[in-house]
């Protein structure tokens, strides 16, 4: 009995670890406030664990199945949320989630494309990205150090993210050709 449970744990962990980043990104697209992502992912994981026994062919279906759970939870969140937290209308969100599900297989590989695109950034852009996401230096301190305003650095970060998105799209399109 105990070894059955351990086997379930191991399998679940393996599938979850593989698919979590893509599902999390899908959830991010469904929510306005990024603080809600972690809470919703926790719900998704618990539901997935509880229903894991019912899933047929997890090797093939785990990611898409978890995405269905996520979609249901996103819509449920939207029903309860205040309007300010769900600025996009339901019809638009349905279309986004539909398309996200359709493109799931391609998006799974996105993190590799992201790494490649980060390498294509200019040295200064990579440095700013590193400060924002990986370093203990705050943007404020970095702004002081480089004689720039905090606001201009945040705007630059936005532009970098847009550039990365365009680059990833181009890269994925090229790969699929």
């Amino acid at each position, binding site marked *: 009995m105990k070894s059955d449970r351990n086997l379930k744990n191991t399998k679940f962990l393996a599938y979850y670890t593989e698919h*979590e980043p893509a599902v999390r990104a899908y959830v991010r697209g469904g929510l306005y406030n990024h603080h809600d992502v972690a809470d919703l992912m926790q719900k998704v994981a618990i539901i997935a664990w509880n229903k894991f026994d019912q899933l047929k062919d997890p090797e093939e279906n785990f990611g898409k199945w978890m995405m269905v759970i996520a979609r249901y939870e996103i819509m449920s969140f939207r029903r309860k949320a205040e309007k300010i937290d769900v600025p996009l209308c339901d019809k638009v969100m349905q279309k986004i989630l539909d398309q996200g599900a359709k493109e799931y297989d391609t998006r799974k590989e996105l993190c590799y494309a992201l790494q490649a695109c980060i390498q294509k950034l200019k040295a200064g852009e990579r440095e700013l990205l590193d400060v924002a996401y990986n370093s203990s230096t705050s943007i404020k301190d970095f702004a002081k150090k480089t004689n720039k305003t905090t606001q201009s650095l945040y705007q630059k970060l936005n532009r970098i993210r847009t550039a990365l998105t365009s680059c990833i799209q181009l890269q994925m399109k090229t790969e699929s050709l």
Partner: protein
Amino acid sequence: MKSSEKKLIEDYFAQSISEEDISSLNELLLNSEEARSFYLTYASVMENLDESRQAHNLYNFGPSKATRFPRKKAGKWMAIAASIIFAVVSLNHFAFQKTLKTDHGIEVNSKNLPKIKLIDFFGLDASHHSFTPGQTQFEVGEYKTSSGKLHLRFGESVDVIFTGASIFEILSEKEIFVQKGNIRTIVHDARGYEFTIRTPSANYIDWGTEFCLNIRPNATDQFEVDEGLVEVKDSKKVNSFGKFTPDYKPSMENAPFTLFDLSSDLPGEAGYARWNDQITAKTKNPDLLGFYTFGTPNKNDVNLSSKNFFHNLPKSTPAGFETDNPKSVCLNRAKSGIASDAILRNCSRSYGRWLGNDSKSLKFDNRFSAAYFELPGKHEEFTFQAWLQMHQSKSSTNMLLKPLLWDGSGKMCIQTNRTGKLYQSFWGELNLRENRISNHKIGNDWQLLTYTFGKENGRVVSKLFLDKNLITTGFPEYAKDIQMDGFLWGASRNGQTGRIRSNFDGRIDEISLWAKAFSEQEIKQEYHQGYPFYQSFAPELVQK
């Protein structure tokens, strides 16, 4: 895709999109598959980058490397998966056992993985700036701080506050090993009984409610019971030295500790220190027009009868606000001195948003309660900010901020309707109010109210924020600047009779006026700097 369309998506994810642009974005995403694909990819980029940051924060606490658990090397996805498994364990009670041994012989398995969260902090090293009170979790392992304050909650009901340099190891939700540190421990209810602090020489077992310890390497422990009962045992937990209360001490023969009058930090002090730390720099900021806090005025600061004191009192005080009482004057602490000092009428000083006697707010509890300020000049950019609580609505419109005279362009006011919903109004801008009533109410908890006025893309924008969220955006058509002149907080003047009546029932704690329009990022920063996290996370007590 056009770059302007990409910008809409960029602004949406930066949470800086205007209400008008939201309509354009809805339309774009509804009709363009390409835009939806870009949107989904952008979301993935945001999430992948964010994840790398969170993983970094989790694994880089303190300079100490000597953790006994594979916390730093486990990899982020295994950590996330393990946390999910932990959540599932709690729900399902299945027997997934991971047993680890610490150097102190404590066995920890997944059934008793600790639930320890950060309540507040101050002055730790720079890598901890991204800690989020109430959210950042601590794991089993060794930690080290070189200075500052760290307030942690173990389980639901034990608070441990470290002050200054400390080295400690979290062994479980109920036990820590401390090599060095000044600590206050508070056990709020029976769930936390037997919380133990182990030191190299003794075990201090709390049976509720509060005690302090000062642990120094190669020196005798210093110990004080403030309230309740604490049992002290030797380092092997074999011999007990007895149970101590504030009034009773058993025999101290061979005891490896001394009783000492310790003044370890109280709950809330980390937050107060964090807030206070930035005040001096803030008051020197040339953009700061006015800055008001409400502690009792010191006689050395306010002496209205002496000519030796320079006061920046309002030039034309309205009837009912004349005063010779220093307690009715609240000094403008901004070095620029552009706004006047405030004159208070029928207000009382009350508890502030930080614990302790130094923190005061201004209570408006009378039908004539009001505060009067003067802000000369025209301001093309402007921010008003206040920490406040509102207890009830007094009437159909409740003025929070209102010019004394509502008589020309550039005059704005902030008010709530009877249900407490906030809105902004502008003189001569009739469309602004009707369209801009928010769904957000001011409540009983401390909240940060921010109003900003400035230009975005060449257009005048007037925004209202509650805490760190944008709640209404208005686009004045005629006003080019803010001209408040004399204005009131918490009251309004009847244009016909000239009488000033209060219609605000609540407290304010800190008001600031700025000659610049705060960005959302700056507002978030102010919020995190000034929010009293301890009060928000006050433990829920259970009765036995």
